[in-house]
């Protein structure tokens, strides 16, 4: 039987389709109380008074607290990635005590018997603020006379990385492209709002949270609150999407834990969407300055990148590291002799930024893929031809790039050829020329994105070198039960990715057991006792391999047992389809029989312990490098400014595939989020630091009407860094698609002298650019 590679329908679906769900907000505990937070209406202010007494007197209210009430025990929310020597990590109290630094920061809370009553009581809390100046623009924030977000100033850190002789690359370069792009701020918008339920038996604590990272969260809650780690159990039940936004240690998680400790009762908090738009960490928000030097034939000599990255008001779990995940990615799939990357992290009085699908790599890919199109336009070359002259050829792998990463495998030519054929590239170019000639008010643009990314986070050794606060391994264990059924325990924490299905496929093949006989357990630190959780397209390439390794250990043990029971040497056994057979005979034992024999332990060989189970960790030796070619055709109505995607082709190389159905779904959703950045989404703050896009009515998530059908296909060059050959797929679509769409829009408008449209490319922006 071969399960790996099969488009298995998901095991997860039935529960989700019939409403048998365990979203955190669905959970109830006896005596459970409801928490609501009062949030700052000011971007920057000193808190001069918090009075919760009137709220305490209202019906149903059990308790009400201000920041002072937590000051002694709430600690500081953690930042696990101090990326530089000069980094400033300001104190980040979960509840503001003396100063607020963004609109939405929690300043008080109410605990009540019902969430309607809690909402009533919030109205009765009085807070006095002494306004301080908002700091909103990154360039102004760095000026010496700028008001300060924190006493130490508005610069969070600086990083400079140089490789090769940059000055020589630019000296007398025949072509220099110099561009500035803005990565607008985005709101991740997982469909399930965050929720936390915390309970205690007076000694130990259980915290259910809509999180991607139950394991990391447990460690961090212990560090922040001082509650010993072994007294904390964290459970991520069903989690409704994350996209990086639930890769966080949040104020609400810490405060709910402290509230249950203080009150001795279970407490639950569920955010409203408007609250979430204000206070779930935001994504992107960079000003990118790129300079590219090239020869007259289009070959790149060198690239200089200088970023300003908006941290928002505080450094959260991996805030400063996000731009750094792009540091080695601006050079992308291209060969060059010199590269320089600089980044300045800037504090502003806005919601902190942190991981959002792709995390640093979409930003880098956008910058380089936009500039490659500019280079092509400058030289009057086809954008794919310029790329072809610069990319690493398939026979040059493994290839160590100018930024120091070693790409293990890839075939950019094959993916591009396939994409061009599916897209009808030449025909669309002909139509474009025709429309230009005719002066058609609806112009056609063709956008190209030949991307790669580093994912499969990550080799622990490399994370250590980057000063990241943890490792990048993953854990898996496999236990065969007495009846021959199988439990797989994984340290990954799925929230839509289908690990239960994919890990079952891997296990079914490895052990020769039926797919249906396998259950995958995850997301509970008491069950999956080790793990590094789910983000950075790491789950399959690291966690899936850990499961595979655990299966191998189970098989090794089963072989010892079989050789003992069948009275042969281990090497005389052949294993196939779940059966150990003595070569050349009919003598055999199934793995299920061996599981039972290991359970009864009546007749075990010397040195073999009871039970057929095992656990393993996997730490990859290298990142993985998915790549692909995305082509987008956009029709731009020059009279209305409306840009409409006519066709979209994505050929992705994510290495070996465990489940093509899941892979295709990840690509679809990823593309949709990247398209959304290009066309629709932007978190907008006004001049006083108020978020204007607090609801889904203001923050434009694309609907089914706004997106086309995507044509997807794959090429397959296996990764060499793991035994499955998988590369990861969670972020690929998002990384690739944003520049493909914007390149198409700019391509349509280039004859009109336009070489950039600021994202999101709204009809108004396009219309104005044309006037």
């Amino acid at each position, binding site marked *: 039987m071969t399960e790996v590679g099969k488009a298995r329908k998901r095991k997860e679906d039935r529960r989700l389709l019939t409403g048998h769900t365990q979203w955190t907000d669905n959970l109830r505990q006896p005596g459970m109380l409801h928490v609501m937070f009062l949030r700052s209406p000011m971007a920057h202010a000193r808190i001069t008074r918090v009075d919760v007494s009137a709220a305490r007197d209202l019906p149903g209210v059990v308790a009400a607290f201000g920041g002072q009430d937590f000051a002694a025990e709430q600690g500081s929310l953690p930042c696990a990635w101090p990326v530089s020597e000069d980094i400033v990590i300001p104190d980040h109290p979960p509840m503001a005590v003396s100063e607020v630094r963004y609109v939405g920061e929690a300043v008080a809370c109410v605990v009540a018997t019902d969430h309607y009553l809690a909402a009533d009581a919030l109205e009765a809390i009085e807070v006095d603020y002494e306004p301080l100046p908002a700091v909103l623009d990154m360039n102004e924030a760095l000026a010496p006379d700028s008001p300060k977000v924190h006493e130490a100033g508005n610069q969070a850190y600086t990083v400079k990385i140089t490789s090769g002789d940059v000055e020589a690359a630019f000296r007398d370069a025949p072509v220099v492209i110099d561009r500035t792009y803005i990565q607008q701020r985005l709101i991740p918008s997982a469909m399930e709002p965050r929720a936390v339920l915390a309970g205690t038996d007076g000694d130990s604590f259980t915290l259910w949270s809509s999180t991607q990272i139950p394991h990391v969260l447990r460690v961090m809650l212990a560090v922040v609150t001082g509650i010993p780690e072994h007294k904390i159990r964290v459970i991520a039940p069903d989690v409704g999407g994350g996209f990086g936004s639930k890769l966080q240690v949040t104020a609400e998680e810490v405060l709910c834990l402290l509230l249950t400790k203080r009150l001795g009762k279970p407490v639950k908090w569920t955010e409203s969407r408007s609250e979430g738009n204000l206070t779930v960490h935001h994504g992107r928000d960079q000003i990118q300055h790129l300079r590219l030097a090239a020869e007259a034939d289009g070959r790149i000599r060198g690239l200089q990148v200088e970023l300003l990255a908006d941290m928002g008001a505080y450094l959260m779990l991996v805030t400063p590291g996000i731009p750094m995940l792009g540091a080695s990615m601006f050079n992308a799939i291209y060969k060059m002799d010199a590269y320089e990357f600089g980044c300045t992290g800037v504090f502003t009085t806005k919601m902190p930024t942190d991981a959002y699908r792709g995390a640093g790599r979409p930003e880098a890919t956008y910058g380089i893929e936009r500039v490659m199109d500019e280079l092509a336009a400058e030289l009057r070359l086809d954008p794919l031809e310029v790329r072809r002259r610069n990319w690493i050829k398939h026979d040059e792998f493994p290839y160590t790039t100018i930024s120091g990463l070693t790409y293990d495998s890839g075939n950019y030519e094959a993916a591009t050829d396939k994409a061009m054929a599916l897209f009808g590239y030449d025909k669309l170019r002909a139509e474009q020329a025709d429309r230009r000639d005719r002066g058609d008010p609806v112009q056609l643009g063709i956008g190209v994105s030949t991307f790669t990314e580093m994912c499969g986070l990550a080799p622990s050794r490399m994370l250590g070198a980057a000063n990241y606060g943890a490792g990048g391994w993953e854990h898996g264990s496999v236990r065969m039960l007495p009846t021959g059924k199988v439990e797989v325990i994984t340290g990954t924490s799925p929230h839509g990715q289908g690990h239960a299905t994919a890990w079952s496929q891997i296990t079914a093949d490895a052990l020769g057991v039926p797919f249906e006989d396998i259950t995958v357990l995850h997301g509970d630190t008491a069950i999956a006792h080790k793990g590094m959780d789910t983000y950075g397209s790491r789950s399959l390439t690291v966690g899936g391999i850990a499961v595979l390794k655990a299966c191998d250990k189970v098989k090794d043990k089963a072989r010892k047992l079989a050789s003992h029971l069948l009275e042969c040497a281990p090497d005389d056994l052949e294993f196939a389809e779940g059966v150990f057979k003595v070569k050349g005979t009919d003598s055999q034992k199934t793995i299920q029989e061996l599981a039972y024999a290991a359970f009864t332990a009546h007749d075990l060989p010397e040195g073999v312990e009871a039970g057929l189970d095992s656990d393993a960790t996997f730490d990859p030796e290298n990142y993985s490098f998915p790549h692909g070619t995305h082509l987008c055709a956009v029709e731009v109505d020059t009279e209305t400014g409306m840009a409409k995607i006519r066709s979209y082709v994505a050929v992705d190389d994510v290495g070996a595939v465990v489940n093509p159905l899941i892979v295709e779904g990840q690509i679809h*959703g*990823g593309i949709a989020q990247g398209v959304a950045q290009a066309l629709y989404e932007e978190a907008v703050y006004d001049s006083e630091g108020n978020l204007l896009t607090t609801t889904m009515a203001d923050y434009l998530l694309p609907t089914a009407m706004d997106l086309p059908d995507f044509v997807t296909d794959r090429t397959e060059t296996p990764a060499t860094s793991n035994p499955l050959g998988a590369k990861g797929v969670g972020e690929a679509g998002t990384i690739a698609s944003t520049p493909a769409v914007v390149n198409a829009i700019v391509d349509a408008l280039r004859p009109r002298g336009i070489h950039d449209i600021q994202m999101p490319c709204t009809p108004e922006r396009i219309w104005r650019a044309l006037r």
Partner: protein
Amino acid sequence: MPRMAITVDGVKYEEEVEPRLLLVHLLRERLGKTGTPVGCDTSNCGACTVMLDGKSVKSCSVLAVQADGCDVVTIEGLGANGSMHPMQQAFHEEHALQCGYCTPGMVMAAIDLLRDNPDPSEDAIREGLEGNLCRCTGYCNIVRAVRRGAQEMGQAVRTS
């Protein structure tokens, strides 16, 4: 407090409710019908869509008292005898869900869409689902699932 009667997934309930109580909170908090989730507070996302007397409504935008005397079907009441409704089955077959949070509302909206148009085109499906947001799938497989569900529901009608 107003007293109201409501049938949810075939079970009759009589409840005393505050006039301000939303239908979705009656379902979730009082009746334990947590299969219907809440995704926003501006009736944009559609995650809380249920059938109210046979028509889809966003249950965050209906007061519980407005549903007095009504018949509500949620995602939990769609299937019969332990098997899924053809639309639920179609979502499974086409991998039209990932995290599954929008799914109950999406399935309800899809069924309602077929009431008006039993054989919708891709464009009609996209238009019909405009009030339901999904962040995971990019909608491609949802559109395919609704096509499949429509075909299977049509078959069911023809063969019955």
